[in-house]
């Protein structure tokens, strides 16, 4: 059981380049999340999804897009990367509300935009 897997683990982008971060979970969870964490800070919610085909904005959605075409995958896209998007990105998944709702996190993607 792999849990939550993020791809890639590290990436360096040039300003203006685009990329997609992949989050995959094998626990059949309904909810999935993308967060960013800047040095010494907490996690800030970018976008989330409560089920296949649905997405919603979080606290800091600008500059990011997401898609949840398959239940097990949640993709985070940066269309035109900016240095302000240099951060560590974490993905998480959890079962639907109303049952045990422990969230499981990936190990993070360290993104540097130069």
């Amino acid at each position, binding site marked *: 059981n792999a849990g939550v897997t993020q791809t890639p683990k590290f990436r360096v982008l040039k300003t203006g380049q685009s990329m997609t971060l992949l989050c995959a979970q094998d626990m059949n969870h309904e*909810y999935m999340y993308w967060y960013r964490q800047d040095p010494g*800070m907490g996690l800030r919610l970018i976008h*989330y999804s409560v089920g296949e085909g649905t997405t919603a904005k*979080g606290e800091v959605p600008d500059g990011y897009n997401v898609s949840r075409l398959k239940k097990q995958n949640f993709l985070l896209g940066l269309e035109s990367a900016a240095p302000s998007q240099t951060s560590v990105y*974490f993905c*998480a998944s959890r079962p639907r509300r109303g049952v045990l*709702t*422990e969230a499981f996190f990936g190990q993070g993607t360290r993104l540097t935009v130069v």
Partner: protein
Amino acid sequence: SQQGEEDPQALSIQEGENATMNCSYKTSINNLQWYRQNSGRGLVHLILIRSNEREKHSGRLRVTLDTSKKSSSLLITASRAADTASYFCATDLNDMRFGAGTRLTVKP
């Protein structure tokens, strides 16, 4: 607005002492959860307390919940250097959000 706000922001104690961290939230909840993050790693779930519970124990962890005050506390007893980490609380709402966390340092 944050769903969970931890206090204090940083806490430094000696090994063997107890560490207490607090969390405040703003909305009604079904449960509240505490997570731990070792430096640069993903968060790991520690303990969940349901809204109809007032106190819960797990090993050296003790969590309390006061729904009337919308607050929770996490107590780590007999702390160890390995407890050094950041600790976060989160509510069970759809848009699961975290506060800035409490950075705990346990000195050997």
